């Protein structure tokens, strides 16, 4: 305990000395750092902060030191997280390498694979994207058709991936591929890492209803992938795929709470601004009721997250509670943006131009973006199936 207190004091002192003041403010989406060969730093202080954290291995605080991680214990990692939160420090680096692939490599990768990839993820040298969904394989992910045929020391890969987030900026893609089409669909899938420098890998951005193009479809044509890039055993990729999805859902499941603490004007204030107030209350009582209804469910959910965290800390076996997080958080996030729109009226429906503030336009786009929350990473319906099966034990 004493050692942990000392670590906390040291950490706080280091953060105070090394985290630039600009990095202690809420992060606009365009200033997020994702690394990779095309890395950009919209804010110069992001680079300073990134370099300092990389040097300590604190972009991946609990990953082993031998790969460039921080080598912190779980408890120390939590202390660092708490201290960063207390100071309002931004994440120095984001991306799917850190949040999804890395944890899976640590669990399933060979020593050579860990050495080849983890350091580059930690140092932000390689940006990863996710090759899971296909035009014909959405919720039925295991129905994927991208083929990988083993030919001596390499696989020959052909296929078509979709919803590959930021594939046009990424350097490598982790892919689910079919290596055996003759067996039950879950039993013929492998987990393969592909270098996107190969001209046969062609990402094409997709324009979305929000006007943004964060997703791509990615065509893979006659790409030769070294056999060493296979993670885990051949045809056993579905287990790894599911484990990675757990990491993905955990990161999406945090949306509701993060959203609630973001930098824009609180929803009640927006409502007061646009409909006025009576005795300090939002003048439109139906709107007020709606705003409160969302706030209360968000509050109850954040208490539930805390309860689950405390249960986990107390050493109890992982409870069933976490199964509800992705579903509940994403449904709440959609409701949050609906409340924003209800509060803002037509002023919140601007698409572009000087009639609307940057925040208004961004929130309007985010409202549209939020509709994907309950689709990506397993739809709400898939999440409810999972709860029904694993938590409630309802029959197939």
């Amino acid at each position, binding site marked *: 305990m004493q050692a942990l207190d000392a670590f906390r004091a040291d950490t706080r002192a280091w953060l105070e000395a090394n985290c630039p003041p600009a990095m202690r403010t809420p992060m606009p989406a365009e200033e997020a750092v994702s690394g990779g060969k095309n890395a950009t730093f919209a804010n110069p202080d992001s680079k300073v902060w990134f370099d300092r954290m990389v040097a300590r291995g604190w972009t991946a605080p609990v990953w082993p030191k031998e790969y460039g991680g921080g080598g912190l214990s779980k408890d120390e990692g939590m202390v660092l997280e708490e201290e960063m939160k207390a100071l309002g420090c931004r994440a120095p680096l984001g991306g799917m390498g850190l949040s999804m692939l890395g944890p899976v490599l640590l669990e399933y990768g060979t020593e050579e694979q860990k050495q080849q990839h983890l350091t580059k993820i930690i140092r932000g040298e390689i940006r990863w994207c996710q090759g899971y969904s296909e035009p014909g394989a959405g919720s039925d992910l295991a129905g994927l058709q991208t083929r990988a045929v083993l030919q001596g020391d390499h696989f020959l890969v052909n296929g078509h991936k979709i919803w590959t987030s930021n594939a046009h900026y990424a350097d490598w893609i982790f892919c689910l591929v079919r290596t055996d089409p003759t067996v039950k669909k879950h039993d013929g899938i492998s987990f393969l890492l592909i270098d996107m420098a190969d001209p046969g890998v062609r990402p094409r951005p997709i324009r979305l209803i929000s006007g943004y193009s964060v997703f791509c479809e990615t065509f893979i044509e006659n790409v030769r992938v070294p056999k060493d890039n296979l993670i885990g055993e051949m045809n056993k990729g579905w287990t790894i795929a599911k484990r990675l999805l757990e990491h993905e859902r955990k990161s999406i499941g945090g949306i509701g709470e993060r959203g609630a603490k973001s930098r824009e004007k609180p929803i009640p204030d927006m409502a007061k601004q646009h409909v006025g107030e009576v005795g300090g209350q939002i003048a439109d009582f139906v709107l007020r*009721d709606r705003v409160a209804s969302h706030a209360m469910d968000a509050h109850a959910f954040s208490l539930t997250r805390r309860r689950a965290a405390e249960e986990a800390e107390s050493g109890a076996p992982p409870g069933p509670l976490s199964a509800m997080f992705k579903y509940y958080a994403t449904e709440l996030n959609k409701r949050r943006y609906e409340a924003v729109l209800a509060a803002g009226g037509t002023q919140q429906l601007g698409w572009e131009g000087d009639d609307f503030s940057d925040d208004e336009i961004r929130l309007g786009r985010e409202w549209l973006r939020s509709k994907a929350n309950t689709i990506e990473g397993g739809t709400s319906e898939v999440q409810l199936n999972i709860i029904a099966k694993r938590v409630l034990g309802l029959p197939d």
Partner: protein
Amino acid sequence: MPMILNSDTKMVRETAHDYFREKSPILAFRKLRDSQDADGFSRPLWREMAELGWTGFLVPEDHGGSGFGHLGLGQVMEAAGRTLAATPLLGSALIGAVAIDLGGSEAQKSAHFPGLVAGETIFALALEEGAHHAPYRIATTAKKAGAGWVLDGAKQFVLDGHIADTLIVVARTSGGPRERGGITLFLVAGDATGVARRRSIMVDSRNAARITLSGVSVGADAVLGVVDGGADLLDTILDRARAGLAAEMLGSSAEVFERTVQYLKDRKQFGVPIGSFQALKHRAAHMYCEVEATRSAVTAALDALDGNANDASLLVALAKAKACSTARLTGDEGIQMHGGIGMTDEVDIGFFLKRARVAEATFGDVAFHRDRYAALSGY
């Protein structure tokens, strides 16, 4: 602020669950209803509950209680909610104890705590005067008469009112009919001259009464707390009662939910368990989420009350609102998923729906507490 129970509280929880399952299953409640029991609860069982210490959980140690607190009593109430046990827990162990503890003089404490802790005296809060929970809408008057007071007015939906030994009467000593100021609480003997009581038969078959006060004379020592400033005490009592009631409702909702999931596994149609149908699975999974979110809110509220936290009232509003909306969800879905059999009196599931709706209307429904949450949040 911990969200998980320590070992003492866990033990209370287990004891309470075992006790109600064994001694007061739903069958016991059904018998009380069918026999039109005059008390509406079992006095022998109530004395046993007192022996288990539950009546003293909110009574300080120097007055014979244990001061174990709201989180502890909440576990008992949740367990009672599971079997729909009809007990004076809410009116006496919770409201009675809190009112005397926080509003009572030393003399009042010495007079009232022993009977309360022993499970011998029953308390009832005579508050409501209309069909909707409105704590400050008080027309019942208390007028100074010599050293004492004379009370006149009509109360309704007084829980345990027809059997209470002591009524906690909310009366107006000054101010207009909806003003927060000018409210005073009085301790009045249930059989005092001028008190007329009539039991109301409610949809949930639990105790409630209409009480008329006609020129009821009480002494100066009947005042509980401060003259004209009773609203603060009343608010505190109500918050604690709401949190306890939310715990009871959580227990009922969890029970309906579990019974319904079991039914989905057992009931076959088209040759398969109906729980294999996605249309029902999704709704069952959604119920799970709502029950768990409610559990978090209720636990946080009870714990905040024990710690006198600044946000206790906000958390209570959240807990009662969530408990109400979840009870409505589980009540309606419980019936729907049970199908026709759920409409019969023979199957217990309908009891939960009926109890939930009365509990919802008790001390503020979803709309009331959403309004309160918004007001406490500054909008």
